[in-house]
């Protein structure tokens, strides 16, 4: 590695030259920034400017550059120099656009620009060029857990793209839920008739595919490792086999809600009350002929009760809607009408839910004579040879009843997602605390696990809601909390077969992506492509376990000596571990306690009589920092006394930065993270929440230092808050001026 040669480039374009004294900034870069090379340019981002930098890199062997121009979010194509470490001093959005115009502000504006140049230089000197995680893991095979419609689709789609697949299915044959169906809802137009499930054909393709190997009647005893190097213990009749894979798709599907829990609807009470699964069984037996009940009587009248044990607000049954059941009942009603148009078929619903082209399917059923009644069923009870359905007809506004030979309850989907970690973790803590009972519970729970991950954070994927493994993010349905492991199909979210196959294909792509990234030592979403990775100086580690506990992605295990063991390809590069570490032994090449700490210390701190407070802003790079940029773009003017530093995530904020800042005379510190709580925005799950927790602990330090607690303040900032951030800043500056300059000034 060639030794460091630094350079600073100061742009005077975009009015920078007119609003700032660029020559003085150059001097700062030289004298204080200690930059070996300092160049000014009137239009740094144009070809000539860029060429100038390129030449320095090639001819002058420059290794570290600070670009003092626009925000790091702008002109990224122009300022793309993959072979050197780069810092960006944000003079445009961050200074001349956001700070008041006019001579009376020239001084403070220039001071701000000066500090940003100091910070840029200070930062880059502590950076090294990330070269990627050395422990590359090259295994590109994929494991698909579950051999149903979703699992087989994932497997086949990935295999068709040239990847080797291992399927593990707990049943003795492939097919899962779909194998129980007589027909499925149509995927393509005309959306009019039930279709063959196509399962046999799919299963055929899967079992004969050269790239796919299948384990039947098998489960997973243990999963260890990381993307690109997972090791999976497959437990089958023949005992345990170890499979090495690079990525995992969990397509473990669902079971139907137990109708015995619905006695008021005749569930488990009457043989003539069945669920949709039972209905499919009858249809398969009839195989197109008149449909008969279990007792062999031909069904002349049938009622489908929608939302049975679903959309429940009482807390006893499923609170959610399983989405597919309306279409499924419509399909099943067609089974009857197609076999014998004379059969009375009534679908009883409160909101009929057939989105998209499902409307055509609905119309088709009406065309066939299926009756749709908007009614709320109160009870279903055996009566005579059949059942009596008591209901409130919501249109005719009356309590009434219907008699039917058969009643079908449209019950919901219950995911097969394994262990719920929110229940698991306290038990583990108790067990580790020595509770025998907890140890026992732990064993019992472990039995229900699907993946049996040997991760510090528990054996399965975290569940989002109602036991489903869904992603928390609307824009990123595959943003998993276990890197390299993706849920697909009804285990992610209640869904119909069309969506499940779509989802399974998407999950397969994400699994492929992980193994490709892992093999290059790169991060996965959302920092995809990031070559930096966490480096730990074990000699300094005190084994406090904060990093292993707080890592949102379960990337860090503990080795036998209880030292943290990093699995870089599980890591998402958020830096939460870095923020957590009390002894500051964790860092990234281009983002560390030093890169930020150095910036903080680098500024020119006015003395306490200057009337010029200095306020540090630590801003989440995803929401708050763009909001600050946009405040500039939209000219929401804010105080020139603030100095903003973008951070990867609030979770990466190490409290040492804050205490250092206050020690070195800053008058206040603002943190701007994203929303936390149930609808949290943090793409690293708990970053802003952790930061909040850590900051709450800082008050004592403030006391010791004899500082008011108002000197540290934290805000939730959304990316749209461009106007609000300016207000927050100005209010806070006013507040600080009110409580006065920090007494810490001049002590260093």
């Amino acid at each position, binding site marked *: 590695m060639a030794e460091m040669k630094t350079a600073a480039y100061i742009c005077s374009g975009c009015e920078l030259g007119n609003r700032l004294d660029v020559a003085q900034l150059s001097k700062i870069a030289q004298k204080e920034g200690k930059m070996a090379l300092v160049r000014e340019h009137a239009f740094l981002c144009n070809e000539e400017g860029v060429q100038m930098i390129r030449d320095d890199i090639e001819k002058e062997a420059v290794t570290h550059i600070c670009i003092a121009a626009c925000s790091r979010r702008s002109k990224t194509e122009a300022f793309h120099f993959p072979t050197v470490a780069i810092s960006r001093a944000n003079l445009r959005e961050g200074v001349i656009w956001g700070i008041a115009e006019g001579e009376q502000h020239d001084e403070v504006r220039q001071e701000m620009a000066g500090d940003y140049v100091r910070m840029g230089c200070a930062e880059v000197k502590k950076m090294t060029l990330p070269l990627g995680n050395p422990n590359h893991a090259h295994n590109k095979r994929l494991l698909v857990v579950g051999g149903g419609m979703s699992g087989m689709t994932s497997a086949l789609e990935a295999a068709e*793209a040239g990847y080797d697949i291992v399927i593990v299915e707990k049943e003795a044959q492939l097919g899962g839920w779909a194998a129980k169906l007589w027909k499925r809802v149509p995927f393509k137009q005309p959306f009019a008739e039930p279709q063959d499930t196509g399962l046999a054909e799919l299963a055929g393709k899967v079992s004969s595919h050269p790239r796919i190997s299948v384990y039947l009647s098998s489960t997973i005893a243990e999963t260890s490792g990381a993307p690109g190097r997972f090791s999976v213990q497959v437990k089958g009749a023949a005992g345990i086999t170890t499979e090495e894979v690079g990525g995992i798709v969990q397509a473990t599907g669902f079971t139907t809600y137990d109708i015995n829990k619905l006695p008021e609807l005749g569930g488990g009470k009457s043989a003539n009350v069945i669920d949709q699964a039972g209905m499919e069984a009858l249809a398969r037996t009839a195989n197109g002929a008149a449909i008969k009940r279990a007792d062999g009587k031909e069904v002349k009248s049938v009622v489908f009760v929608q939302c049975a044990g679903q959309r429940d607000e009482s807390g006893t049954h499923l609170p959610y809607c399983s989405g597919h059941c309306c279409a499924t009942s419509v399909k099943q009603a067609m089974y009857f009408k197609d076999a014998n148009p004379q059969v009375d078929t009534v679908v009883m619903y409160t909101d009929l839910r057939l989105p998209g082209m499902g*409307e055509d399917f609905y119309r088709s059923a009406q065309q066939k004579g299926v009756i749709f009644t908007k009614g709320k069923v109160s009870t279903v009870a055996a009566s005579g040879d059949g059942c009596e359905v008591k209901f409130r007809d919501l249109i005719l506004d009356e309590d009434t009843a219907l008699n039917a030979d058969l009643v079908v309850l449209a019950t919901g989907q219950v995911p097969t997602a394994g262990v719920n970690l929110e229940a698991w973790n306290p038990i583990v803590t108790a067990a580790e605390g020595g509770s025998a009972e907890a140890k026992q519970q732990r064993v019992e729970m472990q039995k229900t696990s699907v993946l049996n991950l040997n991760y510090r954070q528990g054996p399965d994927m975290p569940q989002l809601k109602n036991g489903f493994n869904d992603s928390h993010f609307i*824009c990123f349905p595959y943003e998993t909390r276990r890197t390299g492991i993706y849920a697909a199909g009804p285990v992610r979210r209640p869904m119909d077969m069309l969506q499940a196959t*779509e989802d399974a*294909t998407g999950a397969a792509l994400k699994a492929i992506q992980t193994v490709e990234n892992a093999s290059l030592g790169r991060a996965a979403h959302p920092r995809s*492509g990031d070559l930096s990775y966490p480096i730990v100086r074990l000699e300094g580690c005190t084994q406090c376990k904060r990093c292993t506990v707080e890592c949102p992605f379960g990337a860090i295990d503990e080795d036998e000596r209880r030292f943290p063991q990093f699995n870089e390809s599980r890591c998402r590069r958020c830096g939460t571990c870095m923020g957590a570490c009390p002894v500051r032994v964790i860092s990234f090449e281009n983002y560390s306690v030093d890169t930020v700490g150095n910036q903080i210390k680098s500024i020119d701190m006015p003395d306490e009589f200057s009337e010029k407070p200095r306020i540090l802003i630590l801003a989440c790079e995803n929401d708050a920092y763009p909001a600050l940029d946009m405040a500039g773009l939209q000219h929401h003017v804010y105080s020139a006394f603030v100095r903003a530093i973008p951070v990867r995530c609030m979770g990466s904020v190490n409290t040492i930065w804050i205490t250092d800042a206050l020690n070195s005379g800053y008058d206040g510190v603002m943190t701007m993270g994203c929303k936390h709580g149930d609808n949290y925005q943090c793409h690293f799950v708990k970053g802003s929440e952790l930061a909040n927790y850590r900051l709450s602990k800082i008050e004592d330090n403030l006391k010791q230092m004899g500082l008011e607690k108002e000197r540290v303040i934290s805000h939730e900032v959304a990316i749209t808050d461009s106007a609000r951030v300016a207000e927050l800043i100005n209010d806070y500056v006013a507040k600080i001026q009110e409580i006065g300059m920090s007494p810490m000034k001049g002590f260093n």
Partner: protein
Amino acid sequence: MNASIATNQTILVVGGGISGMTSALEAAECGKQVILAERNTSLGGRTSLLYRYFPKMCHPTCGLEINLRRLKANRNLRVMTQTEVTSVTGKRGDYTVTLKISPRYVNQNCTGCGECAKVVEAEIDNPYEYGLSKTKAAYLPHAMAYPQRYVLDASIVGAADGEKAKAACKYNAIELDMKTETVELKVGAVIWATGWKPYDAAKIQPYGYDRFDNVITSLEFERLADPHGPTGGKLLRPSDGKEAKNIAFIQCAGSRDENHLRHCSRICCMASLKQTQYVREVYGDEGKSTIYYIDIRSIDRLEDFYQKVQQDSAVKFVKSKVANIKLHEETNDLILHGVDTEGYHRYAAQHDLVVLAVGMEPESNGIALPADMITDSSGFIEGSKDGGQFSAGAASSPLDVNRSVQSATAASLRAIQVVHKTSATEGAR
């Protein structure tokens, strides 16, 4: 952009909305070469014009920021804006596509400094505000526009304003003589992520969108609620700028209707439920919302959101397709006539603003698709007969954002399969 970079290993993604960006990024992050062609002046599509997403009430621009960062960091991906696909010939794995690139009149020298906008006087309907506000004829599409470059509206090219803009630009970024270009590329697979457009509300005559100022679409309402929008986030009605505090939301405005769109657009119920919470956000209990619906379609865990809104005392639900709307001339309010079909309650309800939850029409209705393409009765795209062109997101079916992204991710894999197979067979040769 030079055509030579593209080969039959390249994937072309048509449309730079959230689905197109996703398809392009997911494929590029698997190491594939991708070209993303967007018709408008910047990426982001429909969702960048939404204020919040249901059910989390988070901001679409947050996801856009991440996707833009992924995109800036990825060298496998090339973005072309103001670019339309005029023809696709050839076959699966070996297509030749013709792209028409309309002039922006601003080149890559643009630093986004905004000097041109300062000097230009002409104003145009802001294309990113559904014409609810004006913008200078030299403009940055929006605060998060990518590419972050200004655009000159064709109307000032050849006019004094155009010259002024050129004179004001220190960086020779303005090229008034820029011409429409046509580029031919070789690609292996095509993903159509052309998205959706709001159904033309004026066609729903009984609701008088074309006659009454205070009848607006759900998309226009998103702009009103957005702090970056034309009213700075205030819910001011068009006729007189009065604060709208008693708002009607009419479901199935065009959807589930054989006189208009025969399909259900899926998102509108949730969109209106979400928008009632905008009203609460601004006015608290003061702001009344009424939803007129046929069936509320809040599927899977979105049901929780519906249940939450049902608990909201400021929100009323009426099971009724509104029959027609009449203007109350003194107040500019609107009188909705209809019957609540649960039981039988005739109403003539007065509201100060009416929001039509307009249905989703495929944007591809109105653009010429390759002959080989299969579409359904509403025009949503299934894909090409030869299996080398795919649809993603709302171009394939009326989908919400979450499902659009799933669909877009799936489409990337299908496209990757195509280029994988061509490379494999070529390897074999």
